[in-house]
């Protein structure tokens, strides 16, 4: 019965996403291809000094992305440093320098890693004017970059890939904002709070006192998920009953996280003129998702390990209303997208179960991945896949009529090297630098032994892939982690973006080569299988050695 309910829950989610695929995907395709600006948008473009009808080369597009992100970084940093004088700060002091940097980097990079406990650190103004705004715009940046890459495939002999400011504004105002207003109301119906009440002291039924938190939570919660950001309004994130009160709100939160990433392949298909190409990418994403969800659910339901077996189930760090399966569904969704929200504590998962969120992130978050970043990550892997197929049969690889030449392959290869480098170097340095090693082991690591090493590996995996979830026992609010993870988040976000936009520019400049009998069809099951294989081999195998040192060693013990 339990198993049947779990399948029905996943089937409900799949059904809702299937119903959204075409309308949402088509809507986004129109959004990013239309040359008509709404009247209020024209006013806003004038206000910021942008000509919406001008097209940008890839370096100009990139300059927009980087300038906007640098300004965002400074903005969130300054807001936190000024917290003491801001209204609705709940009497909280300025956030310290190191933590402010880490948090600003984290939210601008669409990561939402949280070295802090929100209830004790962030007042309402920083949350809504700093963090929630980045939740919107960092998501809009991600989609913009993905759309720019798709234009690279769609255009021929073009020197331009779109206008960053127009893509940014449309993503924020025509896509994320309206969906957020609707989603926020649904969440409030479910019981998510939305007020400016601060903490309310009550005398409990047994005569104790308890501080009930308040805050503008629903408005931030919805975009935290819809933009695959993940930063909780409260420390316990989506496990907190004021963020995620019931099993149906939890399912709804899964829909919010997956709606845009799973619909973007449709947008891609529409824009390159072949819906079948979109279905192929969707099939790869969905296959990986289903395998991963099944594995984690089986591992947690199995409940192996000393503590879970003693307790009679792996319920440490899980909420009673969610149980095993609503927890594993959320955990899988959150780490296969770049969200990183949690409704259960991954640190307390069974040893091998705890490896699954890590593995999900190590795949590069492409199944379906973060808003925008998932699609461009998968398209880079598709380029690698056609290259490998080309090597096998000895033909020049092509994808969607574009020749994959040395420049494209160099950019794609660099792309897939970025995050493994950051993850492995960051983890290694944490244990290799004298002074830092002692600090990591005595201050930061919470669980002793092998599991503690997994906490550090998880942290760098999460930061470099812009996920934001954690083995949350780790105390990351230290100079080393605030700095190293902050740098990992920024590099893990913006180096790939540079490479993707360069790729977009180089593809857009090419003419299209006509398909011949020798062209590898990229919309058939054969290619889907190839791409699934390439994704797993190229990414997961890189990490196999380090996983054997962490969760696998713990699980085999």
């Amino acid at each position: 019965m339990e198993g049947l309910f779990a399948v029905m829950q996943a089937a409900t989610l799949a059904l809702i996403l299937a119903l959204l695929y075409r309308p949402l995907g088509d809507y986004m395709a129109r959004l990013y291809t239309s040359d008509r600006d709404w009247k209020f948008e024209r006013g806003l473009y004038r206000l910021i000094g942008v000509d919406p009808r001008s097209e940008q080369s890839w370096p100009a597009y990139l300059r927009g992305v980087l300038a906007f992100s640098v300004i965002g970084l400074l903005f969130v940093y300054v807001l936190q440093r000024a917290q003491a004088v801001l209204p609705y700060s709940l009497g909280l002091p300025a956030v310290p320098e190191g933590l402010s940097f880490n948090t600003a980097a984290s939210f601008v990079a669409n990561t939402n890693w949280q070295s802090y406990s929100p209830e004790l650190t962030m007042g309402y103004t920083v949350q809504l004017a700093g963090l929630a705004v980045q939740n919107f715009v960092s998501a809009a940046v991600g989609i913009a970059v993905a759309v720019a890459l798709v234009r690279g495939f769609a255009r021929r002999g073009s020197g331009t890939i779109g206008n960053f400011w127009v893509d940014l504004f449309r993503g924020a105002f025509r896509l994320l904002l309206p969906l957020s207003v609707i989603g926020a109301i649904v969440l409030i119906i479910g019981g998510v709070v939305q007020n400016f009440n601060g903490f309310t002291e009550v005398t409990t039924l047994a005569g104790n006192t308890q501080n009930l938190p308040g805050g503008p939570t629903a408005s931030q919660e919805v975009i935290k998920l819809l933009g695959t950001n993940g930063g909780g309004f409260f420390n316990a994130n989506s496990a907190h009953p004021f963020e995620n009160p019931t099993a149906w709100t939890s399912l709804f939160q899964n829909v919010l996280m997956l709606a845009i990433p799973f619909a973007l392949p449709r947008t891609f298909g529409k824009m390159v003129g072949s819906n079948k190409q979109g279905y192929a990418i969707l099939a790869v994403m969905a296959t990986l998702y289903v395998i991963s969800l099944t594995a984690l659910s089986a591992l947690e339901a199995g409940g192996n390990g000393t503590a879970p077996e003693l307790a009679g189930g792996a319920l440490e760090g899980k909420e009673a209303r969610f149980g095993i399966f609503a927890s594993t569904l959320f955990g899988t969704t959150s780490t296969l997208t770049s969200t990183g929200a949690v409704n259960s504590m991954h640190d307390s998962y069974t040893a091998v179960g705890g490896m699954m969120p890590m593995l999900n992130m190590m795949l590069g978050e492409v199944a379906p991945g973060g808003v925008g970043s998932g699609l461009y990550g998968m398209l880079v892997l598709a380029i690698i896949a056609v290259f490998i197929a080309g090597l096998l049969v000895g033909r020049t690889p092509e994808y969607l009529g574009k020749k994959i030449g040395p420049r494209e392959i160099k950019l794609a290869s660099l792309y897939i090297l970025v995050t493994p480098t950051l993850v492995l170097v960051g983890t290694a340095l944490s244990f290799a630098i004298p002074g830092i090693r002692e600090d990591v082991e005595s201050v930061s690591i919470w669980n002793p032994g092998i599991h503690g090493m997994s906490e550090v590996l998880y942290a760098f995996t999460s930061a470099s892939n812009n996920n934001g979830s954690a083995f949350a026992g780790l105390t990351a609010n230290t100079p080393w982690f605030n700095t190293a993870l902050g740098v990992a988040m920024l590099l893990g976000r913006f180096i790939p973006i540079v490479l993707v936009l360069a790729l977009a520019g180089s593809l857009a400049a090419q003419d299209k080569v006509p398909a011949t009998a020798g062209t590898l069809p990229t919309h058939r099951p054969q290619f889907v299988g190839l791409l699934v294989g390439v994704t797993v081999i190229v990414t997961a195998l890189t990490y196999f050695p380090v996983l054997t040192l962490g969760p696998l060693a713990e699980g085999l013990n």
Partner: protein
Amino acid sequence: MSTTRTAVRTHWVAIRAMLLFTLVLGVAYTIVVTGIGQVILPAQANGSLERSGDEVVGSALIGQSFADADGNPLPEWFQPRPSAAGDGYDGGASSGSNWGPENADLIAAIEERKAQVAEFNGVDEADVPADAVTASASGLDPHISPEYALLQVARVADERGLPESEVRELVESKIQARDLGYLGEPTVNVLQLNLALAELEG
């Protein structure tokens, strides 16, 4: 020179865009959603508060402790799950224990809780359900499993001098089914159960 000028211009655009987004997506959006919540759904927007008479005694969504000042569980109340939020059910410090599956502290805690729950309720250790000996993810879990609630019936009835059948009926009436019949798990809300229990005598 012209690259510098381009960079300055791009950043100036970025600054204006950022200010605009802050006003619309930060301030205006939050105010509109708060307004809608406060006008149409004030009970939920303000925390689904529970009252005993006129007094607010907590939130239906936030678990609370039913222990004395020293942290000893009060036998006349149904007990919630162990909590890692502050000293237990601290509404300002939501948190799980984050103990890993092989952590010696967690193993010892589960052993101790198991013995305590069994002795407290006069049952066998083997009959203690998993949620009774594990801390939730938020530390504010308002629910327990129906099994754990039913396990406590005899103790609570005895302590309050109520017929066991009456307390059992009350618990059964408070079991919340899975959402839509198949989402999540069946639960019992501890605060709502205890409020009804208090009324039973009143």
